[in-house]
């Protein structure tokens, strides 16, 4: 009776609680990124520890995958073709909910760490992350491929395998570089704890990227008080033109 009870308890531990055997405790070096006039990119340090209970399966080695995704955008990808001797945009595809920025850091080769099902469910790899809902079959894969290629060349998308450093299977850290051509918004940071392709724990937080100071002021003015902004631009231009000619007249006597 008692032995059966223990076996039952163990079985219960094996099934649903197996997922609870580990937990991710993480922190970021900064939760706010301020874009001011001198902004030239930034590095975010993501670090943490894997908290385990005493169960034997919790002691098995794990892998860590960290993703940082920029705010989703509505974009159009266009393709040029030669028409009457010149190259012009002909075909185009609209894509929704495409991250403006997407970087992944892993503790090992991504295809080995993350199973295909997990990837599909949580959209971890770059091709899965840019794939919009329901649009997968509507168009051929060349447009998303081109999107990934262009954004990778611009430093907006990247996969860095082995960039997460794991110590004693407990402590992890990774740096994610934010480039200078960053857009405003909330950047979703996800940490996945994987074992043999299966997700065992995850953690999610947001990094707020905001324009501040003069950048904030000009951007808000340009969008909310467009006419005043235009008139101020003109007054600056006219004043600069007038003062330059006045100054040089004065210099020449």
């Amino acid at each position: 009776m008692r032995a059966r009870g223990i076996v039952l308890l163990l079985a219960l531990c094996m099934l649903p609680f197996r997922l609870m055997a580990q937990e991710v405790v993480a922190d970021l070096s900064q939760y706010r990124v301020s874009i001011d006039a001198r902004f030239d990119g930034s590095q975010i340090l993501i670090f943490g520890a894997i908290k385990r209970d005493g169960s034997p399966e919790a002691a098995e080695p794990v892998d860590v995958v960290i993703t940082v995704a920029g705010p989703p955008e509505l974009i159009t990808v266009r393709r040029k073709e030669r028409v009457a001797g010149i190259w012009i945009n002909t075909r185009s595809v609209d894509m929704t909910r495409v991250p403006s920025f997407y970087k992944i850091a892993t503790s090992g080769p991504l295809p080995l760490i993350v199973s295909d099902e997990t990837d599909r469910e949580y959209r971890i790899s770059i091709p899965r992350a840019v794939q919009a809902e329901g649009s997968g079959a509507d168009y051929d894969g060349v447009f998303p491929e081109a999107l990934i290629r262009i954004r990778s060349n611009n430093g907006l998308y990247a996969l860095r395998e082995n960039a997460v450093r794991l110590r004693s299977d407990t402590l992890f850290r990774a740096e994610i570089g934010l480039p200078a051509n960053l857009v405003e918004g909330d950047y979703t940071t996800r940490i996945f704890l994987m074992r043999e392709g299966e997700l065992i724990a995850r953690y999610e937080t947001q990094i707020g990227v905001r324009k501040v100071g003069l950048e904030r002021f000009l951007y808000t003015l340009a969008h909310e008080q467009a006419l005043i902004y235009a008139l101020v631009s003109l007054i600056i231009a006219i004043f600069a033109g007038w003062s330059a000619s006045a100054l040089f007249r004065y210099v020449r006597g």
Partner: protein
Amino acid sequence: MQIYLPIAEVSVNAFLLLGLGGLVGLLSGMFGVGGGFLITPLLFFIGIPPTVAVATGANQIVASSFSAVLAHLKRKTVDLRMGSVLLAGGLVGAAAGIALFNYLKTLGQVDLLVTLFYVVFLGIVGALMAVESLRALRRVRGAKGPVRKRKQRNWVHTWPLKVKFRTSGLYISAIPVLMVGASVGVLAAIMGVGGGFIMVPAMIYILGMPTKVVVGTSLFQIIFVTSFTTIMHATTNYAVDMALAVLLIIGGVIGAQFGTMIGYKLRAEQLRLLLALIVLGVCIKLGLELVLQPSELYSIAERGQG
């Protein structure tokens, strides 16, 4: 020193922008052109989005034209009545140009439109100017050959709605003046230029205006038309980048003053030939981009959140 531009949303070197503004200012001072046809393609080249480049280019021209028109007003070489009629046409043209620009932006063809306009107009004007200045240089060297007299009466004199333009010494129909103004307005809106390089030849060869009032009058018109396009681009596209404009303007006004000094030291024909070569160079560079296969066939346009 990198600076993050709030509207263009890119980080660029501030000294590069000052230098670009200075270089274009130098040329505009030397040749008496606004320099918009050079600054806009150069901004494309350093990675400023085309809509921001066109809109901010218009703002920069206001600054460079304003200091020049002050000097012309002082010398009384501005035909205010002619300028006002040109301006009336210009505002209509600019409004139409902005509408066309925004429509093509939704179709994804705005880059093509801007480049085509550049290739066609720079090609025509550059070629005409090169031929004309070469002929003038040969004439000076040979000091012979008859100086062709400009035709005194052409179709602009036969149309109705005649107006007296005292400063220009003309009594001609207002319709061709409005047409010249309107076509320059369209160019200003689409190319982000003042349009002086089109308007000056049109004023001399079509309207028959005396050369001494041409530059001042065209500058007068350009200031108002580019101010109007700046306002239109700022309120419909939110594409005027004040930080970018200020850096270009600072470089530009300083460069323009030095350009004027260099301009005094060169002969007019040599100056025109040099300008023609620069114009043709920009034209060929942009033309090749249309004809040669680009290294990346795909492009991405952000259309907002979501």
